[in-house]
């Protein structure tokens, strides 16, 4: 899926330059916890998040994220946008909720690369085991 399609699907605005709209992503990951992004995201992914601080850009840089989408109408400050431009990471912003944004992309065929995290740290909570 290329960035131009994603922009349309999410009715999003581009916060960085528009030159990268032909770029493609293969999968998606969504989280507000940057620790989770660093642990579980995969390459050639986009990141959907409600967090707009400068650490999001740093995290995306380290995890080699191809595109960041801010949801819920949130906008990062200029310093954050400038760092993204410097690191060549495109930023989109949409008024959609995180659920709606994920749902629309999923509907159009985008998936996450890993479906089941076998080593869930909280697995025992889920099964109710004591």
């Amino acid at each position, binding site marked *: 899926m290329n960035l131009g399609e994603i922009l349309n699907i999410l009715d999003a605005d581009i916060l960085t330059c528009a030159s990268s709209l032909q770029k493609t992503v293969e999968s998606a990951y969504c989280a*507000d*916890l*940057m*620790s*989770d*992004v*660093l*642990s579980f995201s995969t*390459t050639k992914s986009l990141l959907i998040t409600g*967090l707009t*601080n*400068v*650490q*999001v850009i*740093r*995290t995306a*840089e*380290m*995890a*080699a994220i191809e595109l960041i989408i801010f949801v819920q109408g949130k906008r990062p400050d200029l310093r954050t946008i400038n760092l993204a431009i410097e*690191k060549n990471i495109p930023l989109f912003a949409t008024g959609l909720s995180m659920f709606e944004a994920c749902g629309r992309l999923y509907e159009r065929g985008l998936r996450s690369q890993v479906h089941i995290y076998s*080593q869930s*740290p*909280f697995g025992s909570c889920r099964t109710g085991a004591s």
Partner: protein
Amino acid sequence: MPHRGLVKVCLEEGVFFLTGKDFTNAGAASSSLKGILERLGVRKDIIRRTAIAAFEAEMNVIIYAVAGMMKYRITDTEISVIINDMGHGIPNIELAMTEGYSTAPDYVREMGFGSGMGLPNIRKNTDSLTVDSVVGEGTTMEFVIQLNAVN
């Protein structure tokens, strides 16, 4: 080149200084290290693993310590990174290595960090990891990533 394979040829080494609670520049050292690895033409997946491990370690210093250093050494066979800090130290390293265990304050969690995945994630992305800590003095962490690893 004589003894290649036996003697590690150092391609580049250096040090970055880290300041505790300086969240504005948090990640700058890891970003620079990533840039150096890119310039040296290191494989992308190895760069990603190194950048993630270095960033997690750097964030630990920024969050918990007063100050610290990140020393790196890149040879023709491996990348080694040593991070030492002047901080509280880690009383129980085994516990700190447990996924989900965290002592991070709320403002750190609001920034998206401190969910207790840092040390486990460093271990996941590196080929070897050692952590030494003295409570009240600080922590030294060293990790190595092999350059010739199979994907």
